[in-house]
C-alpha cells in the first residue's frame, strides 16, 4: 500500500516536467492565428485546460496564458474528463462579447473560484473587431488573488481568444506588457 502514494507523486512530478520553450519571433497558433513574440514563453502540457494551449512565464499554477484558436460552434472550452457531473461550457458562434466573457467566467469558476469583471470594452484583435476584458479571480484551491486579461474575437464562426492570469501583486504586472504586445500582434487568417 505504501507504493501507491509514491507512484502518484512520481507521476505528478513527471507531469510537471512537460515543458517546451517557445522562441521569440512569429509563431503560428493553430491553423489560423499568428502572433509575433518579443520574448520566449514556455509551453506546458495541460490536459485540464484543453482545448486551450497553455503557455507560462513563471510556471503553472503561478501564471498561465490560455490560447483558444479556432474554437468551433458548440465546442466545449474546457476538459471534461474531470468533474463529469458538472455543467459544460460551450462556445456558440452567435455569442456576443458579454456571453463569451460569461462563458469564460463559468469555466474559470467551475472549481468554486470567484470571478469579478473589471472592464469589458471593444477592441481590435487579430485584425478584426473584437473585445478586451480585465478581471480578478480568487482561486478556490489556495485563496490566491489573481488578475486576468483577455482578448477575443469571432471570425467565420470560430472563436479566437487569449486569457492571461497571474497573482495580482507581482507576477501580473510583470508580464502584462508582454501579453498586450502579443495580443496587438495577433493576426487571424480569413
Amino acid at each position, binding site marked *: *500500500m505504501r507504493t501507491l*502514494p509514491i507512484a502518484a507523486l512520481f507521476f505528478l512530478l513527471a507531469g510537471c516536467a512537460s515543458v517546451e520553450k517557445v522562441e521569440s519571433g512569429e509563431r503560428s497558433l493553430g491553423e489560423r492565428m499568428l502572433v509575433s513574440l518579443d520574448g520566449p514563453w514556455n509551453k506546458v502540457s495541460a490536459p485540464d485546460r484543453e482545448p486551450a494551449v497553455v503557455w507560462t512565464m513563471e510556471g503553472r499554477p503561478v501564471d498561465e496564458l490560455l490560447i483558444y484558436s479556432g474554437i468551433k460552434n458548440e465546442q466545449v472550452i474546457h476538459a471534461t474528463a474531470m468533474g463529469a457531473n458538472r*455543467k459544460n461550457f460551450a462556445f456558440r458562434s452567435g455569442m456576443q462579447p458579454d456571453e463569451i466573457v*460569461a462563458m469564460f467566467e463559468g469555466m474559470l*469558476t467551475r472549481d468554486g473560484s*470567484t470571478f469579478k469583471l473589471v472592464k469589458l*470594452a471593444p477592441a481590435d484583435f487579430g485584425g478584426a473587431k473584437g473585445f478586451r476584458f480585465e478581471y480578478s479571480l*480568487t482561486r*478556490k484551491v489556495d485563496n490566491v488573488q489573481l488578475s486576468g486579461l483577455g482578448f477575443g474575437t469571432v471570425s467565420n464562426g470560430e472563436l479566437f481568444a487569449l486569457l492571461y492570469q497571474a497573482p495580482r501583486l507581482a507576477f501580473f504586472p510583470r508580464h502584462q506588457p508582454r501579453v498586450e504586445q502579443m495580443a496587438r500582434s495577433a493576426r487571424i487568417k480569413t
Partner: protein
Amino acid sequence: MNRRGFLAGGCACCVGGLVPGPAAAQAAWEIPARFARPDAGSDEGGLWSMMDREEVRLRKSPFSLRDPKLQAYVQDIACRLAGEHCPDVRVHLVRTPLFNASMAPNGMMQVWSGLMLRVDNEAQLAAVLGHEIGHYLARHSVERLRDAKSRSAFGMFIGMFGAVGAVGQLGLYAGMFAYSREHESQADSIGVLLMRKAGYDAAEAAKVWENLQLEIKARPDGDASRSPFFATHPPAADRQQALAELARASPAGAANEVQWREGVKPFLRDWLHEEVKRGQHEESLALLGRMIARSPALADYRWARGEVYRLRAKEGDLDSAVTEYLAAIAGGGEPPDTHRGLGMIYRARRQSPEARTSFQRYLELAPEAPDSALIKSYVEELRT
C-alpha cells in the same frame, strides 16, 4: 485519503444528510454537557488542533463573507439551536454559491451563501444547522477519525503534505466522506429535536429536502445518484417522508420567513448573480421557479431568470428572457443588468430603437459598470 479529504471528513457535511432516524432514538437521546477541550496528545485533541488551524485560515480567507449583521443573525440562530453549547459554536459565512454547511469537531461551523440563498425561512436554515450541531453533539467526527486512522495510507499522506489549503474546499470533499447512515439518521433526529426546543416549525426540515430535490431532478441527466451527496444516502422519498413523520410528532413552531427575507435582502442580488454565473441553467431555473412562485413581484428573481434564459439561449429562451426582464421592470426596483440583457436581445434581433433605449437606461442606472465602454459602443453603433 489525503489530508484535506480527511479534514473534510472531520467536518459534518449535511447537505445530503437530512436522514430521519427513529423517533424512539430521538426520545432516548439527551443533550450532553459542554465538551472540554480534549487532551492535545490524544487523537481527538490532534483533530481539534488541525481544525483550529483551519479556522485561522478561514478567518483570513477571501471567501469569508464578513458582514457583522448577517453574521450575528445566523450565529444567533445557531445559538438558539445549540443551547448551552452556544459559546462553543462559531459560525463562519462563506461566499460559495452551493448548498452546503459543515461543522468541525472544534465548533467551527461553515454556512455557504448558496445555502442561504436557497432556504425560504429561518426554520429551514435551522434544520440544516441543527443537523450539523447534531453531528457535533454526538461527536460523530471522533468515530470518523478513528476509522480514518485505521487506513494505512492516512499517516503517509499526513506527513507528505504540509499545508492544508483553503478551508472553503472542505465542504466539497465532505460529501465524498459522508457519515454512515446511522450517523446521519441520528444527526437528523437531533436536528429536529433542537428545532423544536428552539421554537421552530420542524415541518420545514422536510421542505429543505423537497426543494433540493427539485433542483437535482432538473439536471439534464436527471440522475441524483451521480451526486456525491446522494451516493451514500437513503432514497430521497424515504428521507423526506421520515422527516415529515418526525415533525408530525410535535407540530407547531415558527418559520420566521419575513425575518429571514429582511436579513438576507442586502445580499440577494449578489447571490443571485453568482447563481446565474454557475452556468447550471436547469438547476437555476428550478430554483428560481420556486422562488418566483413564492414572491412573483420581486424584480431580482425575474431578472435572474431572464439572465439564465438569455445565457442558455435554447429555442424559445430569448422570448422567455424578454418576458422575464419586462416583468422585472414592471415590478420596479429591477437590477440595472435587466436593461442590458434586454438591449442585448434587441440588438441581436436588429430592433435598434429598443436596443438603444435599453442600453441608455442601463448606462443611466450603472454609469460605472465594468462593461460601460462596450455598451457605449453599441449605443453609437445603433445610432447609425
